[in-house]
């Protein structure tokens, strides 16, 4: 992994909103025209997907011509080489002969193939573990490499301007079209509980990423088996547990037994995904060590398997196609795990909106909402949005300006999405755990999933880490987890009492138990609490083993509350309307934070916000707008933070807020200690004069009682 980290450095950084200019979609003349017009608009950066088939059959050297045009116009270009879905190309760019052969197709455990019903044609997902496919893929990458080499020979100055993007490819789409049994079971539970009122569950017919995800085709199983054999030869998986020794199991390796099959399947699926990415990186940089490569994770909500049936009915029935609520739900679900990565750099997360998948057919207000939501989710984690020019030009000028404004704030790291709790999974895209669902419901986008321990180093803000019950815990993984919990103040690590500890990991844990003082706690079920440096370790029984009379959902919620309070995580703000969504961003080095409130409904509402402490709150949208005006007027006298109401503000815990339909409201929040708003977010010059604190913003700070507020500007 380390050897590829060196090549992953980038000379140019992708902007947060990148327009796609697919060279294979347009004639050269049109490309030239588009590049010229974009250059005039001051956005000299484009991205293009390179469909596999297009590269293989490129007898007219259109990729080379495209790169020449890019060079002539002084553009920076990102070439997305890994196969992705949602491309306006037959079979999404896969060679037809490869996806027509049954041997090359991916399937689930019941041998059902994964059908992608999306323009320009319906096809079946191939298996990225099929030997024939991988052989051709290596040739395709070699071809790309040689095209780039030839281009750099004639345009050496473009080495810095051309970047190759390696994305996560198809792995997240290896999912069935139906909800899994776990998904349905949870929906039933959720409906019985108060959760039924939550839009999270109501909005979509089924939940995305709930249940098993992965390729279980014959080729994939063969690959997993050979990988497992290699792993089982390691000493760690060969040592017997004390019970096995006592029982004299005769050298039978427990990792080969049935109960471990599913867990190891998920683990190996994740390893296969990581391996594919590494192989792609290796192939691209084998000869050309200076090639600029960036690792990304791209998600195209419009192609998600959840929308397949809806798309099938689309032609017959109005409104059956990809509709707003499902797309919004998919963003939530995918956003929890998009910014995943291992190695020396985090992998940035990107959302891709196509011009052919139904997004364009939504109303403008809905499109604006989804676009902003995807921008906040992806950009808040170092990524952004790839979108077709037609989608971008479909927005109004004022909206585009606002979107670019928020993207700039996020890209300059003036705002970062705050992740408070993490959930460690054996496979990133299989999230069938009730505990994870409840964690996400409680914290929203402040909770994230991860599957690589290396990612912990990029999540410094988090104070709670829950390890899934199906995770295979090796000594190395346990050491990394323990190092994380010891490395920060009041961090909490939750480990399951599962049979998936290797013997070495178990011994390591027992050594800790001998050193640390443990406390047994009974909250309807048992868990142990240990102090580890400044952090804490919780060892819990799996919820599936609860006695029959226990309500698993109630117990689970109780346990989560304990874990959250131990980690010092309390929701900073709660909303009385459950369907409203909130995202908390913080400004590094500043005390104040930004709360985005999103209303996914078609009508406005009056929401009541309750903060955990008295705060000052201000409409960031209005403040930014006023700042722009102030700057344009080139006013010599700085008047402090702009405010609509100039009355002296007092910190307050309760606020009322009018949220318009499909509104995205950015609120800047300053806690009582700060007592003033930072100018950091607005890019204002420091206060002049005697250094007194600037005038406080009292836009909707209503100190004594609730009152509806007016004048807050929605960003959508």
């Amino acid at each position, binding site marked *: 992994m380390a050897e590829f980290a060196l090549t992953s450095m980038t000379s140019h950084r992708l902007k947060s909103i990148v327009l796609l200019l697919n*060279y*294979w*979609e347009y*004639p050269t*003349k049109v490309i030239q025209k588009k590049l010229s017009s974009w250059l005039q608009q001051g956005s000299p950066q484009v991205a293009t997907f390179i469909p596999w088939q*297009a590269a293989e059959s*490129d007898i*007219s050297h*259109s990729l080379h011509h495209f790169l020449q045009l890019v060079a002539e116009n002084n553009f920076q270009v990102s070439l997305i080489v890994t196969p992705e879905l949602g491309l*306006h*190309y*037959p079979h999404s760019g896969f060679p037809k002969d490869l996806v027509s052969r049954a041997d090359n197709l991916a399937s689930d455990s019941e041998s*059902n*193939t994964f*059908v992608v*019903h*999306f*323009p*320009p*044609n*319906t*096809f*079946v997902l191939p298996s990225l573990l099929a030997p024939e496919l991988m052989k051709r893929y290596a040739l395709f990458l070699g071809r790309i490499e040689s095209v780039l080499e030839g281009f750099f020979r004639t345009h050496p100055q473009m080495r810095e301007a051309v970047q190759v993007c390696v994305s996560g490819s198809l792995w997240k789409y290896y999912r069935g*079209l*139906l*909800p899994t049994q776990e998904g*349905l079971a949870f929906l039933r539970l959720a*409906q019985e509980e108060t959760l*039924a009122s939550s*839009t999270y569950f*109501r*909005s979509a*017919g089924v939940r995305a990423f709930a249940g098993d995800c992965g390729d279980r085709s014959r080729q994939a199983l063969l690959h997993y088996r050979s990988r497992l054999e290699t792993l089982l030869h390691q000493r760690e998986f060969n040592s017997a547990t004390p019970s096995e020794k006592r029982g004299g199991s005769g050298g039978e390796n427990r990792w080969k037994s049935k109960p471990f099959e599913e867990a190891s399947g998920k683990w190996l699926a994740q390893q296969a995904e990581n391996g594919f990415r590494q192989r792609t990186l290796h192939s691209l940089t084998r000869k050309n060590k200076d090639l600029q490569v960036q690792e990304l994770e791209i998600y195209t909500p419009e192609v998600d398997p959840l929308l*397949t*049936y*809806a798309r*099938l*009915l*689309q*032609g*017959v*029935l*109005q*409104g*059956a196609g990809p*509709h*707003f*609520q499902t797309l919004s739900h998919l963003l939530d679900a995918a956003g929890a795990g998009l910014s995943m990565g291992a190695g020396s750099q985090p992998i940035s997360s990107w959302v891709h909106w196509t*011009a*052919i998948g139904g997004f364009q*057919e*939504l*109303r403008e207000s*809905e499109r604006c909402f989804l676009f902003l939501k995807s921008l906040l989710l992806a950009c808040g984690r170092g990524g952004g949005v790839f979108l077709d020019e*037609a989608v971008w030009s479909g927005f109004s000028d004022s909206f585009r300006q606002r979107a670019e404004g928020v993207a700039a704030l996020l890209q300059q790291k003036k705002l970062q999405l705050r992740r408070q709790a993490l959930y460690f999974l054996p496979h990133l895209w299989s999230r069938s755990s009730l505990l994870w669902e409840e964690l996400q419901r409680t914290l929203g986008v402040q909770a994230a999933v991860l599957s690589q321990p290396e990612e912990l180093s990029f999540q410094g803000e988090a104070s709670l880490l829950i390890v899934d019950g199906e995770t295979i815990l090796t000594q190395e993984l346990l050491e990394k987890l323990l190092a994380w919990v010891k490395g920060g103040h009041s961090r909490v690590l939750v480990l399951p009492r599962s049979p998936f500890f290797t013997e070495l990991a178990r011994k390591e844990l027992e050594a800790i138990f001998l050193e640390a003082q443990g406390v047994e706690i009974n909250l309807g079920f048992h868990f142990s609490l240990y102090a580890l440096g400044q952090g804490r370790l919780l060892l819990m029984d799996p919820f599936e083993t609860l006695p029959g009379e226990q309500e698993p959902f109630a117990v689970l919620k109780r346990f989560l509350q304990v874990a959250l309070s131990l980690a010092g995580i309390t929701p900073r703000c709660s909303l009385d309307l459950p*369907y409203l969504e909130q995202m908390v961003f913080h400004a590094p080095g500043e005390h104040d934070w930004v709360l985005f409130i999103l209303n*996914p*409904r*078609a*009508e406005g509402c009056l929401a009541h916000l309750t903060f955990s402490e008295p705060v000052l709150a201000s409409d960031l949208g209005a403040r930014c707008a006023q700042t722009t005006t102030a700057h344009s007027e080139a006013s010599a006298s700085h008047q402090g933070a702009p405010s609509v109401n100039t009355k002296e503000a007092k910190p307050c815990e309760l606020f009322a807020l009018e949220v318009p339909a499909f509104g995205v409201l950015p609120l800047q929040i300053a806690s009582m200690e700060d007592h003033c708003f930072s100018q950091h977010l607005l890019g204002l010059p420091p206060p002049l004069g005697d250094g007194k604190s600037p005038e406080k913003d009292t836009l909707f700070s209503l100190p004594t009682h609730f009152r509806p507020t007016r004048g807050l500007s929605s960003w959508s």
Partner: protein
Amino acid sequence: MELVYDWRSFHRFFPQVLPLKAGGQGEEGAASAQQASASSAASASTIIFLLVSGNKVLAAWGGDAAIRAQRLATVPEWWAQYPRQRFQVLECAQVDRLLQQLLVLPNFVQQRQASEDWLLAQPLEKARWRRGGGGGSTCRQHFLLQFLQSRFQVFLPKQYGIFLCLTPYPGSIGFQCESGFFLWIQQGRVEKFFIPELDSLSLEKKKTPENVVRFLAQKYALPVQGLFVAEKHWKDWSAQPVSLLLWRAISRLLKKHPETLVPAQWRLRVLFAWSRLWA
């Protein structure tokens, strides 16, 4: 590089025709139970599609946003909630089989057409549940696509091309044909659809419809029929349901502006005129 299945352009030239106004999308989040029952009365003529697995309802679609917001677990619950509406209950396994059948078709136009045909051929739920009464399709097809697949196809070649070019106004001359759209028809089915490359034609020749059509016929070795229709007329016709009035309007325009058809084909004009009899 020509895209053989240029769906984006296809969608621009043949916009999806929906049975109802597309205004209700996205309002499901706001739908309450009361709204749902109110809207059920308002849109009783629409069909509710239920996707079921065993006796569980997994998803529902209807003409109304409120319908999609409903969370009813079983088919009888749906019937009770919407007593006046007709239902089409689809087993997941059936739909999966349909998806597999679509794989043999080459492109999304044919695949969508086949799925619509299949869905509309499915019987509605038992008569006793058909309280709303009436029948008929909820689907509306584009008039030209419907014509290409109609019984008149026997009078047309087995394989041919249609070059569709939208002009600024009827009978306009001297415009560039570069943004015209090509449909490759084989036995009445749209086999390929793309914007053809005309780079090898001189600017002067591009301004003459006859030259462009001749060039395309030579390039693809197909008989090609050019349709040079004013953009305004095309949009109007595309938005209308296929009817006697529509075909009458088309025939009238062809009579008034014979340059719409390149080459001028009396046979095609007659077929268009006859189409109104079967509309």
